C-alpha cells in the first residue's frame, strides 16, 4: 500500500502539467484575483457592473386614468373606484422598479440606462452597448394594481431581452430581476397592510442588506476569499488527475502486473483513496502557506484557528480522496476515461461556481447558496469562511459532518463498482 501511494505521489511530482494544474494555476489565480480586487473586504465585493437598458412605456397619470376606466367598465361602484384609485396613487410600480434598478445595491451588478422606446433600446442591445433590455410595458401599473387590490391576474408582464452575452451574465440579470420582482410584491403587500404608509425604502435596504451581509460578520479580504475559493476548486482536480492515471495503469497492463504480483484489488483502490487524500492535503497546505507567506492572507490568526483549519482541510482532503477512488472505480468499470474527463471538465467548473469559488453566490439567491452547501467544495468553503469569522470547529460541525457523510457514500459506491476480479 505504502509503495503504491509513494509511487502515485512521485509520478504526480514528475508531471509538469499536473503540478501546473494543481499548484501553479490556483496560485496565479489567487494572486490575480486578490490583487485585482485589492484588499477590499468581500462585502464590498464587486464584479464589473454591466449596463442594461430600461424602457418604461407607461406613465403614472395615464395608468391611473386607464385603471379607473377599466374599473368602471367592470361595473365597480363609483365609491369603490375612487377608493381603489386613491390607494393606487400610493403605489407606482413602474416608477418603483425604475428606482430599484437605480438603487445603490443593484448598481453593483448592473447600471440601468433609460431608453424612450423599445426600438432604440434594441439598437443599443444589437450594438452591444447594453447587455440586456428590461421592458416595463404599458399597462404594467394596471396589471400590478389588479393583482394587488383585486387579486386578478398574476404574472408581472415584465420582459427581459438578452443578447450576445454568456449565460452566466444573463442568469445574473434574470435572478436579480426575479429577486426584485418578489421583493416588490412583498413591499407592496407591506405597504398595503400598513394602510399605504410607504416605508418601503428602509425595509428594502434591510432585507437586501441581510442577504449580502450574511457571511460578513467580520470582513473577509479578497485574498482570503480567493485563497480558499481557488484552493477548494483546484483541490478537486487532484481526483481526476489521479484517476486518469489509474485508467492508464489498466490500459498499459501495469494494473495486470500489480495483480499478478499478488496486490489485492481493494488494496489498490485503497491506495487511490489515500493518495488522493494525502496529495490534496499537501496541496492545500502549500497553497494556504504560500498565500500567507506572500500575501499575508492568514497572518495573525491564532494557533487554535490553524488547528481548526487543518482539521477542516483534512476532511476536505478525505472527500477528494473518496472522489479519486470513485473515479478510479468508474474508469476501470467502464473501461474508459470519460468519467474523469467529465468530472474535470464539467463537474468541477459547475461545483466551483455553485460552491462560490469565483463569487459569493449568496448574492444571487439564497437557494443557490443552499445548493452550494451541498457541493463538497461549497460546504467546505462555507466552513472555512465561518472559521475565519471566529466560529469554532464545533459550530461548523454540521457542514463538516455532511461532507464526511458524502465521503462515506462515495467510498461505498466506489467499492461496489470496483471490478472485483474473481481470481484471488
Amino acid at each position, binding site marked *: 500500500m505504502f509503495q503504491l501511494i509513494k509511487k502515485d505521489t512521485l509520478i504526480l511530482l514528475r508531471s509538469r502539467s499536473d503540478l501546473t494544474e494543481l499548484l501553479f494555476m490556483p496560485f496565479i489565480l489567487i494572486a490575480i484575483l486578490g490583487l485585482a480586487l485589492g484588499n477590499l473586504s468581500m462585502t464590498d465585493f464587486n464584479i464589473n457592473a454591466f449596463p442594461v437598458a430600461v424602457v418604461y412605456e407607461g406613465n403614472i397619470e395615464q395608468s391611473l386614468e386607464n385603471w379607473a376606466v377599466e374599473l368602471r367598465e367592470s361595473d365597480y361602484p363609483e365609491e369603490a373606484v375612487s377608493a381603489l384609485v386613491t390607494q393606487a396613487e400610493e403605489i407606482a410600480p413602474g416608477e418603483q422598479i425604475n428606482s430599484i434598478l437605480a438603487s445603490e445595491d443593484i448598481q453593483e451588478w448592473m447600471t440601468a440606462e433609460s431608453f424612450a422606446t423599445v426600438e432604440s433600446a434594441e439598437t443599443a442591445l444589437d450594438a452591444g452597448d447594453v447587455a440586456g433590455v428590461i421592458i416595463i410595458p404599458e399597462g404594467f401599473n394596471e396589471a400590478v394594481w389588479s393583482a394587488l387590490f383585486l387579486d386578478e391576474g398574476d404574472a408581472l408582464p415584465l420582459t427581459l431581452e438578452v443578447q450576445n452575452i454568456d449565460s452566466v451574465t444573463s442568469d445574473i440579470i434574470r435572478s436579480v430581476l426575479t429577486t426584485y420582482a418578489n421583493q416588490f410584491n412583498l413591499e407592496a403587500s407591506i405597504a398595503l397592510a400598513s394602510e399605504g404608509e410607504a416605508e418601503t425604502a428602509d425595509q428594502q435596504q434591510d432585507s437586501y442588506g441581510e442577504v449580502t451581509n450574511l457571511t460578513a460578520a467580520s470582513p473577509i479580504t479578497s485574498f482570503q476569499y480567493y485563497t480558499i475559493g481557488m484552493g477548494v476548486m483546484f483541490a478537486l482536480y487532484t481526483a481526476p488527475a489521479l484517476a486518469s492515471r489509474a485508467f492508464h495503469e489498466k490500459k498499459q497492463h*501495469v494494473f495486470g502486473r*500489480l495483480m499478478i504480483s499478488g496486490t489485492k484489488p481493494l488494496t489498490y483502490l485503497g491506495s487511490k483513496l489515500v493518495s488522493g487524500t494525502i496529495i490534496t492535503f499537501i496541496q492545500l497546505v502549500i497553497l494556504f502557506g504560500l498565500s500567507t507567506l506572500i500575501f499575508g492572507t492568514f497572518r495573525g490568526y491564532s494557533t487554535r484557528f490553524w488547528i481548526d483549519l487543518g482539521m477542516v482541510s483534512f476532511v476536505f482532503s478525505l472527500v477528494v480522496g473518496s472522489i479519486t477512488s470513485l473515479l478510479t472505480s468508474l474508469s476501470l468499470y467502464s473501461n474508459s476515461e470519460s468519467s474523469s474527463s467529465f468530472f474535470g471538465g464539467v463537474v468541477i467548473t459547475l461545483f466551483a461556481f455553485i460552491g462560490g469559488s469565483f463569487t459569493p453566490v449568496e448574492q444571487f439567491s439564497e437557494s443557490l447558496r443552499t445548493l452550494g452547501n451541498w457541493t463538497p467544495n461549497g460546504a467546505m468553503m462555507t466552513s472555512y469562511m465561518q472559521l475565519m469569522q471566529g466560529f469554532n470547529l464545533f459550530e461548523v460541525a454540521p457542514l463538516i459532518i455532511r461532507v464526511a457523510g458524502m465521503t462515506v457514500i462515495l467510498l461505498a459506491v466506489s467499492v461496489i463498482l470496483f471490478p472485483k476480479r474473481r481470481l484471488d
Partner: protein
Amino acid sequence: MLETKNLTKAFKKKTVVSEVNIYLEKGESVGLLGPNGAGKSTTISMISTLLPPTSGEVWFNGQNALKESQGLRKVMGVVPQEIALYEELSAYENMKFFGKVYGLRGKELESRITHVLDLIGLTDRKKDAVNTYSGGMKRRINIGVTLLHEPEILIMDEPTVGIDPQSRNYILDMIKTLNKEKGITVLYTSHYMEEVEKLCDRVYIMDHGEIIASGTNEELKSILSNEETIQIDVHTLSMGFQDNLLHHSSIRKVTEEGLGYRVIAPKGEDLLSEVFELAKQTHTKITGVSIQTPSLEDVFLHLTGRKLRD
C-alpha cells in the same frame, strides 16, 4: 507443470480462443506461434490468471490455478505485449517499485536490481525516465522488471515486436540463456517463426483461436517431409507465369515472395525443367532458383493456405 484444459474465451458472442490445450514441462521452452488476431494474447491472459475464461481450466502443479491463483502468481513472470511500466519513472525506480510490490527489500532488492540491469544491458541508463528510452530499451526493461522476483515460469507475449534486429537478438539470446542455464520454463508468443524456431523446444501453432498443430520443430516440419519448397526468383513478376505454376498438376501452393515465387511441391519430382519451360512460355526471365528446407512459415502455409504475416 502448467497445463490448460479446453481453455475457451468468447467476447460477447465471438469465440476468440477455442478449446485450447497446451502444457509446459519444467525447464521447457515452448512457443505459441500465430498471426495477428489468432488469440495468443487472450490465451496468455487466461493462463496468467488475469482474464477469466468462458470455460476451461488452468492447472499448475496439480492445483486449479483459477481457483488458487496465488501459488502460480508467485512463481510466474509475465511480460505483456505492451510496455507495462511507469514511463515517467526511471528504470531503477520502476524496478524498485515492482520489486517492493513483490516483497523484496533492502540489500537483496538492490543486488537483484543491479544483476537484472546488467542482464538487460541498461546499467548506464538506469537513472533516465523510461519515456526517454528507445523502443528496444523499453522492451528490455519491460522484461527486466519481470525477472526481479526470479520467476520459475516466464510467460512472454511478443516481447520483440517492433524493434531493430540487434535489440531483438539481444533479447532472444537473453531468454535462451535464462532457459538453458537457469532452467526457467518459458512460454514464448510470437508471429515470427524464426524466433520460435531458434528459441523453442516445442511449438504450438495457433490460428483463429484454435491450436492447429503442435510438436517439436522437427515434428512440425515433418508434416512437410514429403514436400519441398522451391524459391524461384524472376526478373519481373508475371501473372501468366504464376497462373501456369498454379495450374501445374504437382504444385501444391504458390505464393509471391519478394521478386519471385515460393512453390511447394512433392519431393522427388523433377519439377525444375518444367518450371523453366513454363517461364519460357510466358516470356518470364528466371534469375535464380533454390530448393529450401521447409520452415515453420511453410508449415503454417501448408496448414492454412495463408502466410503468417502479410
